[in-house]
């Protein structure tokens, strides 16, 4: 493996929701509080996703722009959030479960992404399906990389 590669942010976890290797063993906030803020945040994120979908419907067989934009925006926001909670607001134990696991986890969706691709293929639009598949992955990864890198640079100044 490429162990000579240097991690630009070793203090950031891999899993933004649960990282047992990075999380401090002593939890000051109880499970109930964590689960409550995750549920509340998840409801806010899911309603936002539903309302965007209602305002910007995707006709059958066309490119699912609303879901793509929801997922790319959510990935951009988690890049900012994770740097801020890992480097600035390190004592705020409920911000990450509320905004990251809850709001952004509820806002973005993998299942709708997968179903969009299945529906496009079933409706004989394999080219659009492939384009959507690739554009979402590329857009999501570029967004999270760009925001995390920029936020790290701003925080370090």
């Amino acid at each position, binding site marked *: 493996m490429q162990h000579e590669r240097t*991690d630009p942010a070793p203090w950031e976890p891999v*899993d933004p929701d649960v990282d047992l290797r990075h999380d401090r063993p002593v939890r000051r906030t109880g499970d109930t509080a964590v689960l409550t803020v995750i549920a509340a945040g998840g409801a806010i994120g899911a*309603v936002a996703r539903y309302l965007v979908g209602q305002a910007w419907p995707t006709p059958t067989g066309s490119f699912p722009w609303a879901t793509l934009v929801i997922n790319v925006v959510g990935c951009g926001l988690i890049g900012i959030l994770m740097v801020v909670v890992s480097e600035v607001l390190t004592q705020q134990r409920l911000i990450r479960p509320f905004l990251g*696991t809850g709001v952004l986890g509820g806002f973005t969706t993998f*299942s709708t992404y*997968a*179903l969009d691709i299945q529906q496009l293929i079933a409706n004989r639009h394999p080219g659009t399906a492939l384009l959507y598949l690739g554009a979402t992955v590329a857009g999501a990864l570029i967004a999270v990389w760009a925001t*995390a890198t920029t936020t790290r640079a701003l925080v370090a100044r």
Partner: protein
Amino acid sequence: MSVLLVIAGAVIGAPLRYLTDRAVQKRHDSAFPWGTISVNVVGSLILGVVAGASTASALPHQVQLVVGTGLCGALTTYSTFSYETLRLYEDGGRFLAVANVAVSIVAGLGSVFLGVAISQAIWP
């Protein structure tokens, strides 16, 4: 009313994602995000079943909103998946990052196709 149905599904889906992720991550010792892959696969399977049943008009629209938009939407996540891929790339190496994308997409798509096929078998 529709918004309340979405909320009813999401308040179950989001904590279920957290609890599943935690339970899966406790059971293995690598940085590979099997927890997130698990919720994305299960959520895609359920959404495939719901979508297949909806096409066959076997499910009321309210159930689609609770289970599909609310529960499956909140159970699965793209933001966690993308951040984990970035951190694997920075921390664990390119192979793990590429493997995470490949496994997530192949397993997620496989699940949604399987879910639709299950519904089509039940409601032909």
